[in-house]
């Protein structure tokens, strides 16, 4: 089978795998419960929703969610619910973590907790998003646009490795990885030189079997016709599978612009923890939440 090219390929692939179990941290809102319901109904995961059983029942009734589809673990309060869900993953009673109504900061705090969290010692968490855009003929995997605020070169090396792992899960055997900067020329600022170093590491196979290029600007990474106009003859010519952004600011802008203007959809998760962590927000489409859960299951 060739590489996945649609987000819908992800749940399709997950359906052929042993069922994974997802712990939902503070799942007391309709958006979350509806996403869980769909994922369970479509056979992507089993779920245990952690939160107030009474509240969950109330919200489920008001939003036509069938609570018999999943298990409920009765825990009162936001942070206790996050901790209980994290504990389920730590104790291998769940394979995936999902954020419910919990605030992102609290959710991340639960994951990053040194004693009881999910981060391996010396590990790094990174956000990976997988885009399907109507005018791009393959999935586009972008990192890190949400978690690592000031990535060092070493952080970027780890972000790259984590992201390549996700690319492999999408059956992209030899991913083309673009180390983004503002230009193809190697200039004096850090992101440009770091991109050159990362590309050098890729040339020396230090990321395994990938094709790496950088520094490269987003248009040369994604559009072959731009490469032709610019006369750019690098290892990537508008056919990148993976985009490693220079920093969280530019990455976040790219992510959000693509979400709103790209006309496609996105699946996203946090990698680097002991298990995939789903971090969707209320603003995400229903499909996006569904695909994110599927992406988590695929990588669990």
């Amino acid at each position, binding site marked *: 089978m060739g590489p996945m090219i649609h987000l819908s390929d992800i749940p399709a692939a997950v359906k052929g795998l042993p069922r994974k179990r997802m712990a939902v941290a503070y799942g007391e809102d309709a958006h979350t419960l509806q996403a869980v319901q769909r994922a369970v109904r479509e056979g992507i995961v089993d779920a245990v929703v952690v939160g107030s059983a009474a509240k969950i029942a109330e919200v489920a009734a008001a939003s036509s969610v069938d609570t018999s589809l999943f298990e409920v673990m009765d825990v009162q309060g936001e942070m206790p619910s996050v901790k209980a869900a994290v504990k389920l993953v730590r104790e291998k009673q769940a394979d995936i973590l999902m954020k419910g109504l919990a605030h992102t900061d609290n959710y991340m705090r639960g994951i990053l907790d040194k004693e009881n969290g999910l981060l391996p010692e010396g590990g790094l968490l990174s956000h990976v998003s997988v885009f399907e855009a109507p005018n791009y003929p393959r999935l586009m995997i972008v990192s890190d646009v949400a978690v690592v605020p000031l990535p060092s070169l070493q952080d970027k090396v780890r972000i790259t490795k984590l992201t390549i792992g996700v690319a492999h899960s999408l059956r992209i055997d030899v991913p083309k990885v673009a180390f983004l900067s503002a230009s193809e020329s*190697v200039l004096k600022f850090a992101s440009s030189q770091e991109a*050159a170093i990362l590309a050098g590491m890729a040339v020396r196979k230090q990321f395994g079997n990938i094709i790496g290029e950088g520094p490269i600007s987003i248009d040369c990474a994604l559009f072959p016709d731009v490469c032709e106009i610019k006369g750019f003859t690098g290892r990537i010519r508008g056919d990148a599978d993976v985009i490693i952004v220079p920093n969280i600011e530019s990455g976040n802008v790219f992510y959000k612009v693509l979400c709103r203007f790209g006309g496609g959809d996105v699946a996203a998760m946090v990698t680097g923890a002991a298990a995939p962590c789903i971090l969707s927000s209320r603003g995400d489409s229903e499909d996006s939440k569904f695909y994110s859960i599927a992406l988590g299951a695929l990588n669990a």
Partner: protein
Amino acid sequence: MEIRTFDQLLEEAKKRGRKKLAVAFPEEVSLHAALLAYQAGIAAPILVGVPDKIRELLRQAGADVDAFQIEEAGSPAEACAVAVSLAHDDKVDVILKGGAQTAQMLHAVLDKDNGIRASKVLSECSLYEDTRVRHSLLAVVDGGILIAPTLEEKVEAIRNTVNVYHKLGYENPKVAVLAAVETVTDKMPCTQDAAIIARMSERGQITGCVVDGPLALDNAISERAATIKGLSGSVVGNADILIVPDIEGGNLLGKSMSYFAGFTSAHVTIGARKPVLVPSRADDGRTKLMSVALGIVAYY
């Protein structure tokens, strides 16, 4: 035709006719070099210093006291200034340092008003004649001037050296940026510089040559070693120019080739408008003569 031996280099120098060679404050070492170049028919020495002392030195050397132009200068520093200012006025083609400090000579060369600076960086090009293994010339840059070169200085030193190689008849010399390993790691910053420089070459920011790096010495000059390491490309195993990380590396590599392998060397300081020669007391006659020949062919 690519010059591959020092005999060919000397023949090329002879084709340029006698070049005016200013010796700044001659003593035995520099006078010997000048007389060898004179006898070989490649130089017309102009001796800059105290006239009586110069005549005495000529007598001691058994040379014709009246055969050479003498320009008066009372001290080594003044002799450097006079020699450089003659070069500045195009009355001299090659400068040879005599009994002056190297720093005094460089100071005169870099003088804003009367100096002859041309490139952003002065660098040393040392050529070694490999008569045993590859039967070719090998350049080491920089074992003499750039102590701990920055990325920018390394790039300029490459540009300087590539210009010399074009004069030696190499259309597209192969440049290896050396480190202790061929992988890129932040534990060895020179490997990161090398990766950046290699990308700059790919981007056309360094032209007229092919660059690869980081490479360990064996991968740069031995195809067998490169093959075992799984490296490919036109530079590996076939490098013409070795860019060393720092002066210690260049000095040790160069002197190892001279003293262990017995290769003859030639040295010229480049990046000024005229070649500047800084002979060492330990240089043998052939090195002295070939350094003058290299200076001439590199510039004329």
